[in-house]
């Protein structure tokens, strides 16, 4: 197992104001697998991802990555194993750093050396090429920025890539390019992907297996094959599937809240 999560609980705040964002989630992702975590806003899907990544340290339960048990605070070596790509390519790149500086930073932090060759290689890898190396983020389009963010995650040569809605801020034509890129990178580098999204079609395109979350709980796990056939077991998942088919007056009437 590449990622093994047991009974994960995440609470925000204290006392009476405490909100349980993730309530007893258990799931595992095999090595080399592409796993989708699907849900609506507030379902806790991003919170699970942030707990795995080490960004959120207020959780209880058990998280193991590549067989190593993880505490709330991570060792520096963990970040070479597991990297993350964020949703908003406009917010995830430092506005005053050139692409070069953005990519050189992780190399410097981990003392890897050979920065020039690494940066060149990873820029080519994400389809940007050396011409982009000394540009500032404001000189790039949204899709190019997301490629830089992916390059930054890849520069440490991680085995796991966590993707938090990586295409939802992009136009559909750019989304297709990024999805194709992620598929190629996964094959070339043998990456394990965890994709958080609200878009079932994106999961169907990129993932092997998925889990559906609602209000902090795991509703059901299924293979993408089953998703394609519409073979969901839980009514909540079926409702999500119907909602993804486009607008229909009668369908909209049938929606209800699932707690």
């Amino acid at each position, binding site marked *: 197992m590449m990622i093994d999560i047991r009974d994960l609980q995440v609470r925000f705040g204290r006392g009476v104001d405490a909100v349980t964002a993730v309530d007893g989630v258990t799931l595992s992702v095999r090595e080399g697998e592409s796993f989708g975590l699907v849900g609506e806003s507030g379902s806790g899907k991003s919170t699970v991802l942030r707990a795995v990544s080490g960004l959120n340290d207020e959780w209880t339960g058990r998280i193991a990555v590549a067989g190593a048990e993880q505490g709330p605070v991570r060792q520096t070596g963990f970040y070479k194993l597991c990297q993350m790509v964020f949703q908003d390519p406009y*917010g995830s790149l430092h*506005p*005053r750093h050139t692409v070069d500086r953005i990519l050189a930073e992780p190399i410097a932090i981990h003392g890897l050396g050979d920065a020039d060759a690494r940066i060149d290689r990873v820029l080519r890898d994400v389809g940007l090429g050396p*011409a982009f190396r000394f540009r500032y983020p404001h000189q790039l389009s949204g899709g190019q920025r997301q490629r830089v963010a992916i390059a930054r995650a890849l520069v440490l040569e991680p085995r796991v890539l966590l993707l938090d809605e990586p295409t939802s801020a992009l136009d559909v034509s750019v989304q297709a390019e990024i999805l194709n890129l992620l598929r190629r990178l996964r094959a070339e580098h043998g990456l394990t992907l965890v994709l958080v999204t609200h878009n079932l079609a994106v999961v169907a395109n990129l993932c092997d297996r998925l889990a559906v979350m609602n209000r902090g709980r795991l509703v059901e796990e299924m293979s993408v094959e089953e998703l394609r056939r519409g073979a969901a077991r839980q009514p909540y998942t079926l409702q999500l599937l119907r909602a993804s088919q486009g607008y229909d007056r009668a369908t909209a009437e049938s929606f209800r809240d699932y707690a």
Partner: protein
Amino acid sequence: MTARTDTPSAPRPAGWRDWLTTDTPQSRAQARLGRAWAGWTAFRRNRLAVAGLLIVLALVIVAALAPVLAPHHPYAQDLNNRLMPPSAAHWLGTDAFGRDILSRLIHGARLTLMIVALVAATAPLAGLVIGTAAGYFGGWVDTVLMRITDIALAFPKLILALAFVAALGPGIENAVIAIAITSWPPYARIARAETLTVRRADFISAARLQGASSLRIILGHIMPLCIASLIVRTTLDMAGVILTAAGLGFLGLGAQPPLPEWGAMIASGRQYVLEQWWVAAMPGLAIFIVSLGFNLLGDGLRDVLDPKGD
């Protein structure tokens, strides 16, 4: 075959302007210069800001070349020519000891520049360190640092400076220390506010996920974003610093005679202000022009550096 040139119609060798404005810089230096150039083009469009810059540059040049530019020695007394009005020999007149006011103003520019430079190099830096640390770490670090800042802010600036000078003894160095100590809190506030707006940004999270230490994040990622507004604020504050230094000088707690500090010069012209107005008015005019220069420059820099206007 007709004569045809072998060189394809490649783009002409780009001028330095194209080199600076290109979308595909070839090196770190070119990227940085290009960014500076873009800033300068924006700055240049503001006429008043350019005027401010020229005034500040003139102050620097006058200070650097004071011995060459000054027609007389700033301390050379000529008791036969006391309190002479402006004339061909003494363009701005002479003071109570017959010293040439223009020469004293020119040498005084050095003192003014020194005060400005020392305050600008210390107070904003202290504020930056305190503010970013408070904003980034939050919690008790924030509480402790910001309460100290609040206490420092609660004292009237000039009174506190007076107290410091009284304790340390009069003199220009002590005046600078007193001004620096009383002027860092607003910078800490600004730096903290800027830090709070960016510390939850995804690019800071991304830096944490690369394993960057808190020190590295503050120095390399947060401080560069605070510096712009601090530079603007510092520039705008410089007029106040000059006036405070002049005020201390005027009260006899700053520069001591015979140093040609502008505030002290006004103080010494005080008793003649009705009959021999130029003794006090000329240094006053100098303070006014330099303060105005810093204010105009600060306004222009705000338009260029502060991203909030976009």
